[in-house]
């Protein structure tokens, strides 16, 4: 089973919310959609789910064109950012609703719900209303509902952004276990590039409704195709130095070393990150960020250097990468 988008676009009032999206998500693959807010990530999911109509292009699942089908006729399991559980129904009834509508018998419904609630370890909360559950539990119920749909595609819309940082880290392995083991194409929308790298095999970086680059986390980090991608992927952010020839040189903070010659600078501030320290140095070319080992001593005369192969050149006007 594969999910394929071909030149998909959505236009509202002569404005492209997403434009010319083409991508393929393979069986058993998790693709993350990342980008700043308003870049069209959630719209893309809604187009795939059929919640919004596409203006151009087509959506296919395993070669079957589903572009004009209603959400009910497509087989997608979606987890919403707010979980979207019905407040007046308890957990069991929330899960039962979709099954009942799809004509599953009472006995089968009960056994299926029992099974999926065991899987997300919430069978003991079956009679609770959503308001009586914690954020993490609600998220698991929403996930259980998507699993019960037995969909051909999973769509996760910022499923963890309402959880605190610690819980997010705890839930990540569980999410991987539950969703990725279904071996279905999965699209994971997030604004957190860190989460995207942790969850997905490939990441699509969206900018103003267009795909900047789709690649593996490794390639996005080391071979960004544009300044936008280079800046969006990787924390602390890449250093962008304007060169005499009008190009922009991007250097990752961990690639910069102290040396006897090179760019001179002055220490502005430092942040301890535990396993490393982040130094902010003032230079003629602006503030430069350096990731250094925690035991790194800071020399009195600061000179900075990096290897030529760690440098990525961008066109200053278009922001596109120049071949090395």
């Amino acid at each position, binding site marked *: 089973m594969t999910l394929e988008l071909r030149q998909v676009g959505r236009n509202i009032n002569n404005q492209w919310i997403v434009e010319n999206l083409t991508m393929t998500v393979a069986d058993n693959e998790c693709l993350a959609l990342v980008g700043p807010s308003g870049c069209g990530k959630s719209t893309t999911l809604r187009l795939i789910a059929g919640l919004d109509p596409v203006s151009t292009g087509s959506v296919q699942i395993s070669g079957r064109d589903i572009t004009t089908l*209603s959400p009910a006729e497509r087989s997608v399991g979606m987890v919403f950012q*707010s979980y979207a559980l019905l407040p007046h129904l308890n957990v069991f009834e929330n899960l039962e609703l979709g099954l009942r509508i799809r004509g599953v018998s009472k006995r089968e419904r009960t056994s299926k719900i029992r099974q999926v609630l065991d899987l997300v370890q919430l069978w003991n909360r079956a009679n609770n209303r959503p308001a009586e559950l914690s954020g993490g539990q609600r998220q698991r119920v929403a996930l259980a509902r998507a699993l019960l*749909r037995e969909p051909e595609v999973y769509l996760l819309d910022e499923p963890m952004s309402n959880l605190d940082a610690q819980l997010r880290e705890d839930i990540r392995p569980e999410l991987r276990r539950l969703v990725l083991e279904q071996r279905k194409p999965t699209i994971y929308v997030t604004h957190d590039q860190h989460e995207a790298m942790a969850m997905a095999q490939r990441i699509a970086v969206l900018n103003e409704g267009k795909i900047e680059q789709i690649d593996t986390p490794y390639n996005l980090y080391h071979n960004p195709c544009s300044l936008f991608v280079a800046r969006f992927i990787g924390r602390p952010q890449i250093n962008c130095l304007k060169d005499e020839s009008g190009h922009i040189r991007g250097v990752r903070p961990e690639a910069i070393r102290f040396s006897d010659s090179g760019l001179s600078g002055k220490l502005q501030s430092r942040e301890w990150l535990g396993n490393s320290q982040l130094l902010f140095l003032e230079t003629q070319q602006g503030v430069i960020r350096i990731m250094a080992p925690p035991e790194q001593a800071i020399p009195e005369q600061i000179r900075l250097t990096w290897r030529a192969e760690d440098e990525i050149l961008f066109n200053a006007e278009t922001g596109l990468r120049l071949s090395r």
Partner: protein
Amino acid sequence: MARDHGGAKSGCRSLRKMKAARFMIIALLIWSLGPLAWQLYTSFCTDQALVTPFASLDQRWTLVHYQSVLNSNPPFIRYLFNSLFAGVVSTVLTLLLAIPASYSLSKLGKRSALFFKCLLIGCALFPYVLLFLALLEIARYLQLGNSLIALAIPYAALSQPLAVLLLTNAFSDLPPELEDAARVEGLSVLQRFRWVLLPLISPAIASTAILVFLFSWNEYPIALTWISDSDQLTLPVAMARIAGSSIHSVPYGPYAAATVIGSIPLIILVMVFQKPIVSGLTTGAIKG
């Protein structure tokens, strides 16, 4: 407390504020409940006691007014049921039309929704008394006179603007993701109404229903002109007839008794639905 001067002062101030608030509440209660209490008192007084309130009488209290009202022909209960019938039919009719209308209105784009809302507010502000001659002509032409069901039609129409405005706010207050999730689950529009939308806006529906019911319960000019058959009269018209039944005197006692009886269903209704009314009105108010 003695040490903390500021605290003591502000304590004093808040105490004074509370006293002032209490006074205001009591004044407000007297203002609004006073006439009702007076009616209640009048309904149980003998005619003698009414005209000489301070004289000492052998017989001050009586149930005779209630007896005369309840034993009239047709019995007063009849009007109560007529009003109840017209009220229920017009409420159901209003909701049947207003719920789908407000759902669509809440889904419209901002500009067109604003346009239609302005139109509705315009309709709601229009003094409906000016319509009743025209309505009477229509009723005559369609032969809708002397029918309580027909009476519910103008009631539902007149209640429509307010009902649609209240319910539209309720629909737009719902998080859109709830309906999206239901669509992904495969629910059709009607199924979404049944399982998602109606349960979630039920407080707004209850408060709207009560307001519509109150309007039809109290409505006078249309009921007066549409209905002449004394078996079909609604409460306000029947009460006016009691008040004007004699040229020489005003029957204060029976009139008061009729008022009391006519208020009881409303009081029960409001007490039962008090909570949804308040919450429904405020959710509308916050969104504005």
